[in-house]
C-alpha cells in the first residue's frame, strides 16, 4: 500500500492516523503541506511510524516551499515520475484526506 499524506501534522491528524494504520512493507509519500514533515525540524512527527515503512517526499513540493534538498536522512526525495513509480510498485493507494 502507498499512503499519501498532504497536510502538515500541526494542522490535521491525517499523518498520525496514517502512521497508526500503515504496516511494514508499505510506503508513505509526503506531498503538498506534508513535506514539512520530511525536514530535520519536522521529522519528529514520524516517530510513530511502523518499522519497515519506507518514507518518500515529493521534491517539487519541497522546492516550492524553500526546502529544496533539505529532506532529512532516511527520507527519499522523488519527483512526479518517482511518484508514478511508487503508485505502480505498490498494489494500492490510500490518500489520507
Amino acid at each position, binding site marked *: *500500500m502507498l499512503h499519501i499524506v498532504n497536510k502538515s501534522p500541526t494542522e490535521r*491528524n*491525517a499523518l498520525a*492516523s496514517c502512521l*497508526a*494504520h*500503515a*504496516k511494514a512493507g*508499505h510506503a508513505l509519500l509526503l506531498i503538498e503541506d506534508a513535506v514539512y514533515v520530511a525536514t530535520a525540524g519536522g521529522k519528529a512527527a514520524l516517530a510513530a511510524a511502523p518499522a519497515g515503512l519506507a518514507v518518500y517526499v515529493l521534491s517539487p513540493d519541497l522546492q516550492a516551499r524553500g526546502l529544496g534538498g533539505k529532506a532529512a536522512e532516511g527520507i527519499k526525495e522523488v519527483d512526479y515520475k518517482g511518484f508514478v513509480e511508487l503508485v505502480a510498485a505498490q498494489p*494500492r*493507494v*490510500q*490518500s*489520507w*484526506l
Partner: protein
Amino acid sequence: MSEGTVKKFMFVNRKAPYGSVYALESLEVVLITAAFDQDVSLAFLDDGVYQLVKGQDTKAVGMKNFSPTYRALEGYDIEKLYVERESLEARGLTEEQLLVDVQVLSQADMASLMAEQDVVLSF
C-alpha cells in the same frame, strides 16, 4: 478487466458531517457502488465516527439530515460497516450511541482490513 469482476472497495470516512460535504457525498458514492455488485465496506474512524451519532437534527441549520440514510444501507446489501474502537473512545462515544448496527474493530484490525482492499476511497 472483464465483466463480473468483483473488487474489494473500502470507503474511508474520517470527517464529521455538516461541517463539510464529504460525508454526504461519500454516502452518495456508496449507494451507487451498491448497484455494481462489488464487495463494499465502510470504515469510520477519527472524526468520521461522528457521522453515525444518533439524534442528529438539522432543522435549525436548514440542511438535510442524511443520517437516516445509513440505516437504508442494509436494504442495499451493504452490511460491512466498521467503526474503529480507539476513535470512539477518544471521543467519549460508545456503540450504543450509534444509529446503525456496526462492527467495532480495534485500530490494528482496521489497519489489517485496509491492507486487504483493492480500492480505497477516502472522503
